[in-house]
């Protein structure tokens, strides 16, 4: 059987071993790169993981030449998946610790998860835990996306204080609700995908997200 090849970007922040392990578990052959110069031909698939802060992540991405590689890769039409801060960096701007430019592949900003609920109370930030993914109105189907196997209403694991806010509703792949606050749980534009949740930490439904990404 053919093992799908995936290149995972290591920009030196946080722990990507669990992403690598989960991709391997889904049958992928994984190559980890620490510098854009290590990437010869454009890879079949690219994964941009991430924990930590937006600004520090982008600074490291630039330092290592990934700010140029990732947009070039996106142009190729091959599938790209950002996870958590990796998904946030796909947008134009981040607002964590001041305003910082992102990769700009999806129009919009990365903003704090509102601490106030529609009911007027406050809820805990960071948002940590399992929360159901729902399809936004503008997404009649998840087929041919990384969520193609994901049952509507099944939960995924989140740990974050910021979330993408795409300008275009059509770029919201999934939403989730935290005490009634609508949060963008996943973004998608053509071949560029991003999960604010952690598919590598969301049990078997999460592994299915990675498998579907490998099938794209």
């Amino acid at each position: 059987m053919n093992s799908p090849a995936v290149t995972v970007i290591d920009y030196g922040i946080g722990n990507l071993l669990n992403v690598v392990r989960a991709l391997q578990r889904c049958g992928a052959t994984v190559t980890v790169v620490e510098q854009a110069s290590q990437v010869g031909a454009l890879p079949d698939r690219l994964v941009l993981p991430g924990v930590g802060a937006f600004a520090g992540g982008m600074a490291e991405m630039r330092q290592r030449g990934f700010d140029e590689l990732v947009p070039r890769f996106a142009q190729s039409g091959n599938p790209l998946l950002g996870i958590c801060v990796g998904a946030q960096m796909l947008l134009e701007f981040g607002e964590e610790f001041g305003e910082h430019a992102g990769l700009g592949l999806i129009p919009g900003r990365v903003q704090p998860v509102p601490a106030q609920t529609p009911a007027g109370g406050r809820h805990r930030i960071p948002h940590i835990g399992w929360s159901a993914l729902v399809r936004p109105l503008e997404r009649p189907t998840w087929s041919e996306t990384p969520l193609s196997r994901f049952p509507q209403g099944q939960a995924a694991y989140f740990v974050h204080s910021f979330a993408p806010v795409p300008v275009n509703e059509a770029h919201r792949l999934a939403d989730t609700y935290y005490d009634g606050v609508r949060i963008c749980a996943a973004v998608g534009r053509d071949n560029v995908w991003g999960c604010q949740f952690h598919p590598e930490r969301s049990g078997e439904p999460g592994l299915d997200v990675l498998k579907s990404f490998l099938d794209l």
Partner: protein
Amino acid sequence: MAGIRLIPRLDIKGPNLIKGIHLEGLRVVGDPHAFALDYYRQGADELVFMDIVASLYQRNNLTEIIKRAADQIFVPITVGGGIRSLDDVRTMLHSGADKVAINTAAVARPELITEVSQRFGSQCMVLSVEAKRKPGGGWEAFTDNGREHTGLEVADWAERAVALGAGEIMLTSVDQEGTRKGFDIDLLRAVAARVQVPIIASGGYGRPSDLMEAAATGASGIAIADALHWKRTTLPELKTQAREGGLEVRP
């Protein structure tokens, strides 16, 4: 609302899963890997592994157990016990942990909290607190499985640790731990009122109503040990009971 997280807590001594009362009087339960894998398959939301003798002997046996677990378990894993430095944290993360729970070393040198959260993110830095009721009211934080006094008032310490960068608090009631008499609800409420970060209630689960009471204090995670280890209940059963009690739990 975010679901309540049901978190099996596995206390480890050497190669064994163990369980005690008030963090003492330990009995061997079995092979931690087999239990952890079973809990994952039952639908555990996260797992916590605590090396309960590590801080006494200043060593850590957990690395191998975590590595094995991480190959087969794809939910968040928190590891605690004997973690004293950034190097220890790195070793645990490289073994497959997502977060570390730190008690003794954070009390000894609170700046460690800031160092860990700056280097690895605050989501990775769980403050572990062992709380005992004080005769005159309030709670004192202890270390070394409830043996060593710190003189710190739990709610003050939790608030300070969050200001230093702790992203989550695992709050263990030593009084209730292993008793099956329910969580220390006043303790949970007292700490929840002082910090905004998520709190994991630990110590005392006995019956399903304890889940609802703990959740009502604002705790968003619930650690359960002996009720699962001794198979008095299962995670699917707990989820059903929580759902019937009006809590949101993942399918």
